[in-house]
């Protein structure tokens, strides 16, 4: 914004008219304390979706395959480091036995004037795209899979999925993934420091101080709830206002999630705090993405939430990635293969090659998440084994913007449910079946105790993808 706004340190200071400066014991409260291991019997399951934009450099039209392994079937460290070393997924070789790559799914519905927006709308919802608004403003007409998981499985004190973002929000298409319901898009948090401090809350404060804060909150919440109920009881209230106030009312919580986990060390905290003014600079994309991934792993380890999303880049990610010291053209333009966001423009030399380089960079970032999830051990393995981490895309391929063959790269068996170490073709099925499978993997059922079969638009054929299941 052009408005001149002097910055204050946001850590917790106000310089008032009296000039006094007061510090809170805030940073100290965020430092690590003791760790308590979770018992095996209580171990929950988790799902995280990491979304790359603009499709991947897979076989499409005249362009060669540079993403998937060369053959369906088992995926091994050896195959990914020899035969398939030229494929983007080779970056995940260290996790070969934990991978489940799924090709052959498609989004069922057309977009509404904007391929990116329509893809983003459908990616985690398998729902139709809104008629109004349309174009780049279109919205999904249904709930997203992360919302379904969090609603069903999260601790009562935190019913929301963790919804994170890295990169610019340029205003054209911003967050696209998480929906509470039809046209009810959930905002994504792109500031790791803010996410971390909200997550930790007062957990680490001395007991006496925490008790006082909690007591104050109870009194405050009581009065605020009274006020909200008074407003909501007005007979002269539109449905929209009623819905809006209800969301607010439901958000008021008396207790925080109790975090039973080891918090990051001072160095990691300082690194996040140093980026508290982050506003989406291209140069920080990988740094912020990895911080957000650290927070997702932490959130799972602490059982803060059972579902998370991380959107990397905006709707048609226009980041200029710097990879191995080279600053690439805008990613969206690379995906179009021309120096333009439209259909006219000079060709970008070796554009598919550049797209492949970016695919590899996303694979490396995803690998970082897998490494972080693997850092947390359980008595039977690691947190990754209790989870399914999914690297996904809201388009199939770059230049065609196709909704066919949308890539899903899963890691982790979700407690042994998923059959890992393989690359499968689902057979051109609609991707609601993929989500039905993931929902079943985290422990949800269809009400009759069987696999979830009803996620997404009711017009879609129900069912799971059996080949994904161990």
């Amino acid at each position: 914004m052009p408005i001149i706004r002097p910055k204050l340190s946001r850590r917790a200071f106000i310089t008032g008219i009296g000039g006094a400066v007061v510090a809170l014991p805030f940073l100290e409260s965020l430092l690590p304390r003791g760790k308590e291991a979770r018992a095996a019997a209580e171990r929950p399951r988790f799902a995280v979706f990491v979304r790359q934009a603009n499709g991947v450099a897979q076989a499409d039209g005249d362009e060669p395959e540079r993403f998937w392994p060369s053959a369906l079937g088992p995926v091994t460290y050896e195959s990914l480091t020899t035969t398939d070393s030229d494929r983007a997924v080779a970056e995940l070789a260290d996790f070969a036995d934990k991978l489940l790559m799924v090709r052959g799914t498609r989004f069922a519905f057309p977009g509404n004037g904007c391929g990116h927006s329509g893809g983003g709308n459908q990616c985690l919802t398998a729902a139709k795209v809104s008629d109004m608004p349309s174009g780049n403003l279109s919205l999904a007409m249904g709930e997203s899979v992360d919302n379904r998981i969090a609603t069903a499985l999260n601790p009562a004190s935190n019913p929301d999925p963790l919804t994170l973002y890295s990169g610019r929000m340029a205003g054209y298409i911003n967050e696209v993934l998480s929906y509470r319901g039809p046209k009810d898009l959930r905002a994504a948090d792109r500031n790791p420091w803010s996410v971390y401090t909200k997550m930790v809350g007062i957990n680490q404060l001395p007991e006496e101080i925490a008790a006082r804060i909690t007591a104050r909150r109870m009194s405050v919440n009581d009065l605020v709830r009274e006020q909200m109920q008074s407003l909501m009881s007005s007979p002269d209230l539109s449905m929209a206002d009623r819905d809006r106030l209800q969301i607010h009312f439901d958000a008021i919580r008396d207790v925080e999630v109790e975090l039973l986990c080891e918090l990051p060390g001072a160095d990691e905290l300082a690194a996040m705090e140093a980026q508290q003014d982050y506003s989406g600079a291209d140069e920080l994309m990988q740094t912020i993405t990895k911080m957000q991934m650290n927070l997702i792993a932490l959130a799972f380890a602490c059982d803060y939430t059972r579902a998370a999303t991380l959107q990397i880049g905006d709707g048609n990610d226009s980041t200029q990635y710097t990879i191995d010291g080279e600053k690439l053209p805008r990613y969206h333009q690379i995906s179009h293969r021309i120096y333009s966001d439209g259909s006219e423009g000079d060709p970008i030399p070796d554009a598919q090659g550049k797209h492949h380089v970016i695919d590899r960079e996303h694979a490396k970032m995803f690998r970082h998440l897998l490494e972080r999830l693997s850092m947390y051990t359980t008595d039977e393995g690691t947190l990754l084994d209790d989870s399914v981490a999914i690297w996904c895309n809201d388009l199939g391929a770059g230049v065609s913007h196709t909704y066919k063959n949308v890539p899903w790269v899963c890691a982790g068996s979700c407690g042994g449910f998923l059959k890992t170490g393989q690359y499968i073709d689902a057979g051109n099925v609609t991707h609601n079946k993929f989500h039905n499978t993931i929902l079943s993997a985290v422990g949800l059922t269809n009400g009759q105790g069987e696999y979830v079969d009803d996620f997404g638009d009711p017009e879609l054929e129900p069912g799971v993808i059996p080949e994904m299941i161990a």
Partner: protein
Amino acid sequence: MDHMVDLSWGSSRHVLGGLALLAGAALSGCYSGAPARESEGDAASATDSASDSASASASASASGTGGDTDTAGDTDGGAAAALPDTSRFPRLSHRQWENSIRDLFLLGQVTGKSDLFIGDPISGGYDNNSEKLVVSATLWTDYQRAAEEIAEQAVNDPGIMAAIVPAIDGDSTAKASAFIESFGRRVYRRPLTPEEVTRHLEVFQAGVGIGGDDDPFNSGIRIVIQTFLQSPHFLYRVELSDQLDGERIPLSGWELASKLSYMLWDTMPDEPLFAAAEAGELDTLAGIEAEAKRMLADPRAREMIASFHYQTLHVEHYTKINKDAVKFPEFQESMRDMMIAETMTFVEDVVFESGGGLTELLTAPYSFVNKTLAPLYGLDPAAFTDELEATELDPSQRAGVLTHLGFLAANSSNIENDPIHRGVYLNLQILCTGLPPPPDVVPPPPPPMEGETLRERIDRHTGKGTCGEACHGTLINPLGFAFESFDPLGRWQTMDAGKPVDVTGEFYFNLTGATKFDGAVQLADLIAESEEAHRCYVGHLLEYGFARTQQLADRDMIAEIAERSRLDDLPITEIILELTKSDAFRFRAPVEG
């Protein structure tokens, strides 16, 4: 919660005239040859940004004589025009929250705490669109944390405490009551009822009991501040009035004061405005007008004008301007901020220094130039400094904000002009033609041919005789091609691919029908004389000022103000003033059913 109503000019044009121009336009779009939709999943779009619009909803119909303008200065609700349905609980935007905190605690500057708040997924429209602003669980946590931090800091700052706690004699309960009444009046932007004072006093006592501060009184004040800042009466601009006057409900003076201050200043009312509300002065049109005039003369109104135009003109896009280093070695990344400053300084100058209207914004042949930008305007940099200064430009080349460097450079690719997006922007944001979204499947562009100009290439792909003819041939391309006399850096150019640039075109305007023009300056004049542009602009101002999208019930008022803007060159500040005097500002519709 979705109130979007398609009031687009496109729709009315289909009905009112110009049908020949739009022949062949399918219901789902302007494309006559492309499939409307694919039934299977391979829905794709190679022109995924062609519907780039903050708001496709638009202006009013050609009919309308001004509706009930209620110029008598009373609040008689008889024979009133229908009012739009509006929220009784518009949430403060993050900017409004920041400014309100600053003013509540009498700080010299904003705290910046809202920079860590989760953003609002607006999905079109302005960032204060009340239909989209909700308090989610994440934002509630943000508000809670900010309230606790601010309360902590306030009670530990003797200067702040002295400023917000009345210095009265009496025990701590009496002092607390005085604080709740005086500070609460400013937080809730209305006097508290006796019951509210009592209930907040209970919270104060609870806070004293909880303790935690050296002075128990401060513990009580701390928790009351926390409560105030998390209350819906602070976080929303609540409209409690519910008494019918005819078929509509007049807002109270206190509610009008808040509506005025958040519209014109993006913050809470100041003391004179509160005093006007308390004295009943806002119950009359004259009272509202007097306060609105005072407020528009205040520097805080400049922030509102800046924010509105920043969003309407898509100035955010200037931050992404980038040019190929080989083709445009003159480009420097520092130019982005200069171009932003140029546009924003120009807007401020037109609105406040010149007292200008939309016509001046679109046609004035001057801008603000420094030594870096001067060469791009063909001016000698030696005559300039690092500071932007008002500079007359060649009136045969430049007319208004759309011929300034920022708009031209932002609506170009790294290597060439982008007439399609220039045309789309003008249709959607300046004329509100309400273009339908492009089809999901667009044929691939033809390869460039030797010696072909950009216009020729785009015409070959989307112009007349192609499947893109209906939208591109008649609506998008003609407007975009008018700017082919500028290069991707915004410099004047006369040749493209060895040929003289062709900037002629024809566009259908309501008043003049199919109208020919030759270049951006002539086009700017035509736009400034058009009904469409004035209705579009007034409609945008209504959306920003009233923090909601337009509805059908708004159209007569928009048409009436727009006509005065067009015929009388109504200053932009006067347009805003007219909005504050409208029935839609002073009343709300009862909720049906």
